[in-house]
């Protein structure tokens, strides 16, 4: 067990293990995505209030869910990096940020495209929307800070602290629909309660959630591999790898 954990900290093994998982994650993502598209766009019946406009949730909800979970992944790896100084944790925090920013951006845009026909406006300064926008700024701020500092260790430390400070925003986003009177509707699915939507609408949504998660991990590992190659370019295994390809 400990040797396994020890190996995980070594860049060479990280590179290899990541390469092993990427094809599986990619396949899961594509299969679930196609099922989600067919189920969400064709098989699921139109909503009795929102007509076919509700089909936007099949991309909106997974994006929004991932925008929060990617931040939690970053917070976790930032903590690991600050406490145990594991190099690979820095890599994970760094390569997750652009993906998190993408999901946040998608959640905001798909949300406002849904809001126009349903609420009558693209944007309102309501608690859920505003806190999600702040999340986007956190991602962008992290990336800017990380790339602005010349010294890599310094950059990692400073930006990790920024990530941890930003964690405060996550429960605010999650509970904003409960704490404040907002336009945004409450959650239809949660871990603890029975979902309040019909199975024919629910399953494609769950498939999309799985697809987005697998997508995130696949692309995160792909980016991590690039980052490892760059950081370890002076080590022998990278030289051998470059010569054989």
């Amino acid at each position, binding site marked *: 067990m400990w040797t396994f954990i020890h190996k995980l900290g070594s860049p060479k093994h990280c590179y290899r293990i990541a390469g092993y998982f990427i094809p599986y994650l990619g396949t899961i993502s594509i299969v679930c995505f196609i099922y989600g598209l067919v189920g969400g766009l064709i098989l699921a019946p139109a909503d009795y209030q929102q*007509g076919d*406009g509700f089909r936007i949730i099949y991309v909106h909800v997974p994006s929004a869910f991932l925008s929060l979970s990617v931040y939690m992944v970053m917070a976790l790896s930032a903590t690991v990096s600050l406490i145990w100084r594991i190099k690979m944790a820095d890599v994970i925090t760094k390569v997750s940020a652009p993906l998190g920013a993408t999901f946040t951006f*998608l959640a905001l845009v*798909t949300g406002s495209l849904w809001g126009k026909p349903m609420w009558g406006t693209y944007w309102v300064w309501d608690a859920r929307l505003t806190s999600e926008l702040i999340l986007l700024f956190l991602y962008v701020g992290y990336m800017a800070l990380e790339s602005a500092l010349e010294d890599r260790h310094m950059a990692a430390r400073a930006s990790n602290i920024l990530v941890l400070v930003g964690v405060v925003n996550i429960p605010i986003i999650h509970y904003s629909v409960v704490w404040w009177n907002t336009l945004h509707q409450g959650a239809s699915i949660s871990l603890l309660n029975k979902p309040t939507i019909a199975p024919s609408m629910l399953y494609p949504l769950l498939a999309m959630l799985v697809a987005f998660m697998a997508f995130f991990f696949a692309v995160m590992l792909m980016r991590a591999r690039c980052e490892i190659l760059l950081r370890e370019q002076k080590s022998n295994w990278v*030289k051998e790898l*470059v010569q054989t390809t």
Partner: protein
Amino acid sequence: MTLQHFFSMGGYARYVWPCYGLVIGLLLVNWWLPLRRKRYIIKMLARRMAYLDKEALAKERQGE
């Protein structure tokens, strides 16, 4: 569901299709960027190594 209904999305086509287009587009870009970057990094490292090898060889010859 008829084909026409599918494309018009019950009148919501203006909102639904851009959403799906944007999501699929951005996801594909995110998928493609690290692939391109990895190719670029390996090419760059190979070039750098070739250059360093040549330099080392030249130094060896000078030393002779």
